[in-house]
C-alpha cells in the first residue's frame, strides 16, 4: 500500500469536521474500550497475564531467528511450504505466481493487515484473479474502495446507511435503513456463492506456533474457518513478528488478545491450522503455504529503542484508548496501521520524512500504554521518533524540524539557563501580552501560540513571579 502519511493534517481535519464519522468513532470507546475494561476487571489475574504476555513477546523477539527456523521446519514437516518475503512486492509476486501456476480463478481472503501492506486484493484483481474479501468489515471496505479504518473493525466509520448503499444496489435515499442482521444476511448471500467457487484462499495469521508449525486465526464470523477449509489452496500471510514459541504461550496470548480487542473472553471462532490435508484425511486444502514477510520489520528489530513495537499483537486496544485516534480516525495515519502503534511502525517502515506528523500527533497521555495487553511503552517510542525528527542526530536525513522551531527551542534553552534571564523573558512576554488581554486572558494571540486561541483563551503571564512573591512574603514576616 502506498503510504499517504504526508496528508495527516488535512485528513485529520476532514474527519474532525465529519459529524457522522465522529458518531461512529464514539462506538470505539463505548463498545471496544469499555469492553476491554470490563473483561479485564472480570479476569482475576489480568495484570499477571499482561506481564506474562510481555515476557513471551520479549523472549520471542529476542530469539526471532531461532523460532522462525523452528516454525518453518515444522510447517514443512507437516507438508506445507514456507516462503520468506523481504518486502511486499516479493510476497505479492509469490502469491500471484502460485495462483497463475495452479490455474486459480477465484481467491477468497479473510482479514489480514499484512495483506493490506501488499494491497493484495487490489493487485490480484488487477492480475485477473477474482479476489474477494470475506470478513464483513473488509468486504464493505472493498466495495467502498477504501482501506481499513481500524485494526479489528475495518468499517467502523461506516454508518448502517453507508453499508446498505454499498451492499444493495437498489437502495435509495429515503428507503428504510436495514438493521445490522438484515445487512449481514445480505452480505452472507453474496459471499456464500463466492465461498463455493473459490479455489484459493489467503488468510492472515494471529499467531504462529513455533513448536507445532501451526497458525491460529481469531474471528467472529467463521469466514476464516471456511477460508482455511474449503478452497484447495490455502495461503497464510504473516509478519515475521507473529511467532509464539509454544501452545502454552499461545493460550496466554489468546486470552489477552481477545479480551483486549473486543472484550470477549473468547471469540466465536479460534481456528488452528496444521498443514494441508494428509492422505488419510478427507477434508482440508491440498496445499498450505505460509508467506512470512519482513517489509521493514528488521529495521524495527535492529533499533533497540523501537524494537518493542514488534511485540504488538494487533488487538487495537491502543486505538480505542487513544483520544487522538478517536478524533482523527484511521485514514489520517496514511498507511496500514493506524493509531498509536501505527504512529510508531508506519514512520519506520514507510519513511519518517513524510510521516513526521504521526509521532507529533499525541498528547502523550499514556492511555495506549495503559491499555496495551503486552505493555508496549508507546509514548516513550513516540518521544524517540520526535527526537529523530527534531534533531536527526543519528541520521541527519531524518531531521524535518523547521528552522524557526529550532530557533525557538534554542532561545528557550538560553532563557532557562539562568534565573535572571528567566525573569526577564517572562517580564518581556508579560509587557508584550498585557495590551491584548482582558481580565488576565487573551482571546487572540500571535504566533507561535496563535494555534491555542483558535478554541481557547490564553492566560496572561503573571506580573510577578512566585519567587518574587515568596521573597516579599518572607521579608514581611521578618
Amino acid at each position, binding site marked *: 500500500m502506498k503510504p499517504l502519511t504526508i496528508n495527516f493534517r488535512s485528513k485529520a481535519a476532514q474527519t474532525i469536521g465529519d459529524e457522522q464519522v465522529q458518531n461512529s468513532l464514539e462506538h470505539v470507546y463505548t463498545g471496544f474500550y469499555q469492553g476491554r475494561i470490563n473483561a479485564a476487571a472480570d479476569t482475576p489475574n489480568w495484570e499477571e497475564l499482561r506481564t506474562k504476555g510481555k515476557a513471551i513477546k520479549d523472549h520471542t523477539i529476542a530469539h526471532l531467528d531461532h523460532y522462525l527456523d523452528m516454525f518453518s521446519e515444522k510447517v514443512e514437516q507437516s507438508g506445507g511450504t514456507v516462503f520468506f518475503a523481504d518486502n511486499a512486492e516479493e510476497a505479492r509476486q509469490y502469491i500471484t505466481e502460485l495462483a497463475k501456476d495452479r490455474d486459480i480463478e477465484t481467491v477468497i481472503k479473510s482479514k489480514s493487515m499484512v495483506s493490506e501492506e501488499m494491497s493484495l486484493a487490489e493487485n490480484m484483481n488487477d492480475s485477473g484473479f477474482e479476489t474477494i474479501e470475506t470478513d464483513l468489515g473488509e468486504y464493505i471496505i472493498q466495495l467502498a474502495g477504501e482501506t481499513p479504518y481500524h485494526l479489528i473493525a475495518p468499517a467502523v466509520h461506516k454508518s448502517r446507511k453507508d453499508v446498505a448503499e454499498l451492499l444493495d444496489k437498489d437502495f435509495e435515499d429515503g428507503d428504510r435503513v436495514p438493521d445490522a442482521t438484515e445487512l449481514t444476511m445480505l452480505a452472507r448471500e453474496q459471499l456464500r456463492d463466492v465461498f463455493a467457487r473459490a479455489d484459493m484462499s489467503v488468510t492472515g495469521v494471529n499467531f504462529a506456533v513455533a513448536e507445532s508449525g501451526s497458525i491460529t486465526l481469531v474471528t467472529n464470523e467463521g469466514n476464516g474457518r471456511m477460508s482455511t477449509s474449503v478452497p484447495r489452496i490455502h495461503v497464510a500471510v504473516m509478519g515475521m513478528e507473529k511467532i509464539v514459541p509454544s501452545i502454552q504461550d499461545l493460550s496466554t496470548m489468546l486470552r489477552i488478545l481477545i479480551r483486549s480487542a473486543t472484550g470477549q473472553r473468547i471469540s466465536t471462532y479460534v481456528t488452528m491450522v496444521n498443514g494441508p490435508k494428509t492422505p488419510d484425511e478427507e477434508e482440508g486444502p491440498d496445499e498450505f503455504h505460509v508467506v512470512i514477510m519482513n517489509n521493514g520489520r528488521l529495521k524495527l528489530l535492529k533499533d533497540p529503542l523501537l524494537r518493542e513495537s514488534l511485540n504488538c499483537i494487533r488487538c487495537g486496544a491502543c486505538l480505542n484508548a487513544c483520544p487522538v485516534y478517536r478524533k482523527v480516525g484511521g485514514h489520517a495515519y496514511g498507511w496500514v496501521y493506524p493509531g498509536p502503534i501505527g504512529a510508531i511502525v508506519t514512520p519506520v517502515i514507510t519513511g519518517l520524512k513524510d510521516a513526521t506528523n504521526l509521532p507529533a500527533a499525541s498528547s502523550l497521555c499514556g492511555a495506549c500504554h495503559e491499555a496495551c495487553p503486552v505493555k508496549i511503552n508507546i509514548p516513550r517510542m513516540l518521544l524517540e521518533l520526535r527526537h529523530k525528527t527534531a534533531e536527526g542526530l543519528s541520521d541527519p536525513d531524518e531531521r524535518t524540524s523547521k528552522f524557526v522551531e529550532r530557533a525557538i527551542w534554542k532561545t528557550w534553552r538560553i532563557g532557562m*539557563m539562568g534565573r535572571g534571564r*528567566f525573569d526577564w523573558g517572562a517580564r518581556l512576554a508579560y509587557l508584550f501580552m498585557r495590551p491584548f488581554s482582558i481580565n488576565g486572558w487573551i482571546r487572540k494571540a500571535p504566533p507561535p501560540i496563535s494555534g491555542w486561541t483558535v478554541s481557547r483563551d490564553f492566560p496572561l503571564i503573571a506580573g510577578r513571579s512566585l519567587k518574587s512573591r515568596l521573597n516579599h512574603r518572607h521579608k514581611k514576616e521578618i
Partner: protein
Amino acid sequence: MPETSNNNLGTQSVTLFATCMIDQMAPTVGESTVEVLEHLGLQVKFVDQQTCCGQPAFNSGFRSESLPVAQRFLELFEAVDGPIIVPSGSCAAMVRNFYTDLFRHDQDLVERARTLSERLYEFTEFIDHFFGSDAIAGSCDDRVTYHKCCHLLREIGIDEQPLEMLSNIDGLEMTPMNRADVCCGFGGAFSVKMPDISSAILEEKLDNIEATKANRVVAGDIGCIYQIEGGLRRRGSTTRVLHLAEILSESIRNRKTGKATE
C-alpha cells in the same frame, strides 16, 4: 491538628520545585502549595535559581536543548537536602521517569537523577504518602468535579487520592465527571502544533464537565488547567478550574475565618 507535624517524614523542612509555568504564569498555585504545606507544619524552602526541568523541549524532541536545562535543575536541587515537592504530575514524571531517557548517554547523570527522584514527590502524592488523604480539613461550599490529569494518573499513579482529600472538605459537593481519566487534549506543544486535534479532544472534555453542573473543576497540572479553563472561558462558562492545592488552601482559610459552610 494544623501547625503540628504528626508525620513520618523525619524532617520539618521541604523544598518546593515550583515548575516554570507555576512560577511565571500561576504563582498563586505556588503560594497555595506553600500554604498547604505550612498548614501541615512544614517549613518550605525555595531555591531562588530554579527555572525549568527541561520537559517542554524534551517532549518536542529537542533533547540537546533540554539536556543542559535538566542538568541545571539536577545540580540546583542536589544542593538542598530533604524532600522536594512538585505541584505538577508531568514535571515530577519528567524527573522521575524521563530523565533516564534524556541522560542515557551519561550513566552518572542517570544515577544522580535516580537518587534525586527518591526524595522528589508530586504534591498530592507527598501529602497522601506522609500525612494521609484525610490530613487536611477545611470547608467550602462549591460543587466540584475532578479531572484526572494524564501524567499524574499514569506516570505518578495518583488516581482516587485527590477525591479522598476533597471528600474531607466540609460543604464541598463532589459531582463525578464522565470519562474523568480521558485526556483534555493539552499535551504541551501539541496544543499549539495541532490545535484542531487538541481542541476536538478538549470539546469532549468540556461537554463532560458542563454535564456535571460543577462550578469548579479541580485538576493537578497547570497545563491541563489552562487548557480546560481557556476552553470554558471561550464557551462563556463561569466554571473555573483550580489546582488541588488552591482549593485545599482556600478551604483551610475558610475554616479559619469561619467562611463557607460551618
